[in-house]
């Protein structure tokens, strides 16, 4: 049961082969059996999930399911507000905070009938590429428990790879959906900026943040994207267009035909700094696509080499401003120093105690980049580079329907390996960051195991803004061709974890 895709589970629910209560219970049992090792979850809401499953079964029995995924359970990254379930963002400053409202994404999941299993672990405030910056301890990669599951959404990706949930939600500011997808052998999609509501998504860098699907297959991601996407009047940056056509595109792609599709390989996102085994799987995937009729063109995006620098100025600047709301006055932790402290003394003590190292680094860096005298040289220049990156994308999409690269330069590294070397940690997002700066959609899907370490490598597909359907068409085609070649899904090769499969 638990190794089935969300689409298969939905079909089994529709046919009456199983019930949402049975499915939800199976995943809760799996969480109970393996999450001690994996630590993908910060909160498990068994009662809430079982109640939602019972309600779903009642709708099915009455012949009125709320959506195609009604009754299929889901895990939600702890960055999204869930009414009645603690939401911490992986931070001590929000320990025990129970939101009085639902994020729009969460409200849509509930309206579509998906039982919420719980909240998944993440780097504190989504700052990191390894989930080691969580104040509640790291998540471990189901492929090798001594390695990182990627970040910041390592919990959601690991939950999928460990069969603890058939679907999950992530958020992606510089790669936090796609890079964990790459290193855990799962699928992750960052929609076009504005395609999925940010209402109730606790902001890190609001001009870059975007929530999206984390799943075991491309079709599952398309199904979930249609549930959570679309216009929301509560988010002023929400695009006023319907989120449709993704499932259709994935089904079309699954026939494996790529005739007439032009695929642009980005020169700057490959070569030096990329692990040999990652590049080998990437190049083989290109060959598979050519054999299926695709045409490969090499495209150059010269400004992408500056994307990391622009990102590490824009993101901390926005983060330092967004995180000013954690002031110990209205919600969250309050630390009161001895004596007769003022509100400001309380704020300072609380923010020192409540924020971890990485959050402090980024707040200070952002405060610096925004200070008078440095603003033009740093923040202003970074915004100009953002323009250059968008222009590179425009020129590249004039030559190709989609752009591709390895998702991350390496496979999963060891826990602790880069924890105190921030710059080396940041380099993990080198291939995913340009899409956030330009607002274009991106997908990562597994393209095999690297020869050096037998760990998953990710294949990234990027499309022009609002053309998310192309990701599903091309992604589903590559997935179907590779699955045929492998004789099964990559996820079927995840090592056995503690519990019975």
């Amino acid at each position, binding site marked *: 049961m638990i190794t089935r895709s969300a689409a298969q589970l939905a079909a089994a629910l529709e046919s009456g082969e199983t019930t949402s209560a049975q499915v939800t219970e199976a995943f809760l049992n799996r969480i109970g059996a393996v999450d001690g090792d994996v630590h993908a979850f910060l909160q498990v809401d068994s009662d809430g999930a079982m109640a939602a499953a019972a309600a779903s079964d009642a709708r099915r029995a009455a012949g009125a399911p709320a959506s195609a995924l009604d009754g299929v359970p889901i895990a939600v990254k702890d960055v999204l507000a869930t009414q009645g379930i603690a939401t911490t963002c992986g931070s001590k400053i929000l320990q025990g905070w129970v939101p*009085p409202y639902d994020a729009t994404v969460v409200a849509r999941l509930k309206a579509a009938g998906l039982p919420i299993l719980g909240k998944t672990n993440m780097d504190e405030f989504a700052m990191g590429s390894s989930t080691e910056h969580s104040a509640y301890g790291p998540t471990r990669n189901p492929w090798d428990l001594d390695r990182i599951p990627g970040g910041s959404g390592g919990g959601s990706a690991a939950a999928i790879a460990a069969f603890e949930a058939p679907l999950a939600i992530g958020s992606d500011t510089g790669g936090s959906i796609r890079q964990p997808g790459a290193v855990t052998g799962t699928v992750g999609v960052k929609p076009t900026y504005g395609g999925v509501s940010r209402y109730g998504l606790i902001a890190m860098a609001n001009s870059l943040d975007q929530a999206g699907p984390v799943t075991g297959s491309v079709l599952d991601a398309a199904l979930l994207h249609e549930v959570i996407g679309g216009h929301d009047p509560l988010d002023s940056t929400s695009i006023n267009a319907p989120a449709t056509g993704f499932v259709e595109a994935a089904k079309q792609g699954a026939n494996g035909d790529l005739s007439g599709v032009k695929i642009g390989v980005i020169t700057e996102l490959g070569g030096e700094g990329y692990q040999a085994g990652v590049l080998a799987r990437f190049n083989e995937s290109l060959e598979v696509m050519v054999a299926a009729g695709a045409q490969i063109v090499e495209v150059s995006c010269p400004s992408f080499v500056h994307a990391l*620098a622009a990102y590490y100025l824009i993101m901390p600047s926005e983060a330092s401003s967004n995180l000013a709301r954690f002031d110990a006055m209205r919600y969250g932790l309050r630390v009161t120093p001895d004596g007769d402290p003022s509100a*400001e003394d309380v704020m300072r003590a609380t923010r020192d105690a409540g924020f971890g190292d990485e959050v402090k680094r980024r*707040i200070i*860096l952002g405060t610096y980049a925004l200070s008078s005298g440095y603003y033009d040289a740093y923040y*202003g220049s970074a915004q100009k580079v953002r*323009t250059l990156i968008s222009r590179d994308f425009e020129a590249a999409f004039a030559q190709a329907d989609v752009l591709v690269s390895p998702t991350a330069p390496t496979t999963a590294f060891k826990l602790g390996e880069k924890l105190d070397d921030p710059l080396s940690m940041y380099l993990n997002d080198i291939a995913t960051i340009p899409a956030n700066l330009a607002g274009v959609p991106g997908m990562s899907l597994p393209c095999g195991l690297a020869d050096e370490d037998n760990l998953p490598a990710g294949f990234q597909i990027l499309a022009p803004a609002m053309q998310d359907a192309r990701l599903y068409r091309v992604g589903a085609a590559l997935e179907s061709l590779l699955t045929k070649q492998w004789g099964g899904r990559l996820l079927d090769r995840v090592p056995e974890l503690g519990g019975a499969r």
Partner: protein
Amino acid sequence: MSATPTAITREQVRHLADLARIDLEDAELDHLAPQLSVILESVASISAIAADDIEPTSHALPLTNVFRDDVVVPSLSAAAALSGAPQVEEQRFAVPKILGEE
């Protein structure tokens, strides 16, 4: 274009943390200052890349102001809004004194 400094001193970090309302301890200053210098060094090249006539981009997609009709819609109750507050008094957020001695 003025030369941009690429190292950040311990005293600067202390000042920036003060602006950001974070009480950093001495050990944290020792730890963070060199790391921040390394990060800054790697991003400092940014100012030399884009020509003066390049327009800055703040958002990937063009933003327009969004209005809604001026009608009352349901919102959080006072109790719900105060439910996460560290301290509440008479249906209000209770905060420490906001003015110093003078």
